[in-house]
């Protein structure tokens, strides 16, 4: 190709890939020659000498590389450890959930065992349920039980609780019943009145246990004849006369001999006696209770 004006050859641009193809071919041939010579062992001591020069540099670089690699490995290990921590956290969470489930089952088992023990010792047929709610205000001492008419719960049934080593004791009476829940009036409520009797040696004294929570106490036994012997520590149980006594709970069906508490202090008031009663079970601390469905005669 020629320049028509100046009549001289045009130079190809430097970036043309074909411009120095001869150089490429020469380099390829040179590389091939080196390969053949090396394979034939004709490079002699040249190559070992070059490599002996390069070896210390390589060793130095390798040391640097190892330390860098160590850091890199450390970083990789950190990443792996993070992944492992995440996996362990997930496993831990699962185990915690499983543990909670086991605790719940254990609790259920304990409650059922307690129920069985009570039913074995007493002629009662019980139904256990969680206390699902308490009244938010202090006006009334009422709790909601997670059992209702579908479970055989009826108004007036006695509700029992157990705390520590205490005997199963009365904590309230079923007031209203829904299909799956019921409200229980606690015996500590001011409006609660339950017929009771005190065993003192061979003598039995009868009275009424009245709730006192709203007036700053817990239970009070009233209506005991002055002549009846009453001593602190005497055991108070239900009398089973609630319905007959025409109290505020006309449908009350509380059987007799359910423990309520013990006598703490006694006050003589005219011809009668009054006593402060310490309940076996604090109704406010109970989270699980049994409804006494029936009693074997």
């Amino acid at each position, binding site marked *: 190709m020629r320049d028509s004006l100046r009549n001289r050859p045009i130079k190809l641009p*430097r*970036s*043309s*890939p074909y*411009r*120095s*193809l001869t*150089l*490429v071919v020469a*380099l*390829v041939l*040179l*590389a*091939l*020659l*080196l*390969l*053949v*010579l*090396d*394979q034939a062992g004709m*490079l002699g001591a040249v*190559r070992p000498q*070059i*490599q002996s020069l*390069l070896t210390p*540099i*390589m060793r130095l*670089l*390798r040391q*640097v*590389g190892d330390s*860098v*690699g160590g850091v*890199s490995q450390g970083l990789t290990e950190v990443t792996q450890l993070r992944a492992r921590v995440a996996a362990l956290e997930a496993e831990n969470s699962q185990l915690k959930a499983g543990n909670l489930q086991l605790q719940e089952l254990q609790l259920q088992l304990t409650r059922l065992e307690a129920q069985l023990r009570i039913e074995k010792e007493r002629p009662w047929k019980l139904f256990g349920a969680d206390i699902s709610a308490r009244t938010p205000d202090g006006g009334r001492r009422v709790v909601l039980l997670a059992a209702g008419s579908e479970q055989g719960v009826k108004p007036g049934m006695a509700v029992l609780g157990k705390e520590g080593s205490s005997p199963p004791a009365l904590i309230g009476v079923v007031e209203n019943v829904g299909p799956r829940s019921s409200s229980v009036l606690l015996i500590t409520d001011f409006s609660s009145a339950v017929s009771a009797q005190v065993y003192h040696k061979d003598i039995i004294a009868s009275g009424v246990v009245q709730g006192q929570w709203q007036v700053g106490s817990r239970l009070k036994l009233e209506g005991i004849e002055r002549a009846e012997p009453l001593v602190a520590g005497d055991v108070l149980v239900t009398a089973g006369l609630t319905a007959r006594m025409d109290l505020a709970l006309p449908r009350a069906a509380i059987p007799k001999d359910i423990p309520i508490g013990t006598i703490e202090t006694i006050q003589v008031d005219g011809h009668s006696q009054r006593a402060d009663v310490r309940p076996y079970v604090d109704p406010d601390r109970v989270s699980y209770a049994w409804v006494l469905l029936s009693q074997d005669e």
Partner: protein
Amino acid sequence: MGSAQPRRIEERVIRELWLALVLLGLALGQAALMPHLLGLAPNLLLLLTICQALIAGPANAARWAFYAGLALDLSADTALGLHALALLAAVLVAGLILARWSRGNWLLPLVGVVLGSLAYHTLLALLTGLLVAPISPRVYALVVVLPATILVLVPALPLFLVMRWVERRRRGEVPFDVY
């Protein structure tokens, strides 16, 4: 004046020596320092020579390939000329096939690296098969060629852009890209 005058032979020799030394240093660094991923280290020199072929043409890059190949042979203790031939093949394949592509095209380095890497590994496998021991092409392709190509493909675009920027600054060109 200076640039218009033909370079003296001493200048050229020194320049070539510097290039060879730099590439030798890179080869040593690659052999000693480069982290291994999937059991392979990214072949920095292969990437450099391919990018150089795409930017400056295969003739210019052939020198890089030759020096880099010899440096790799020395640092890897392989037959002298083995890597040089493989790198020359990469340079030629990538440079000639993509000679008409614009240097502003962002796909150029990616396609070039794939082509160059395939040529490099194919020739290397052939020569290794001839000189050392036969290689199963399928296994070699899956175990070596594919991961090694992916490894050099990742930094191909950034390196190409840097090298192109340097080259344009050297030549005083105005950059433009084709999307």
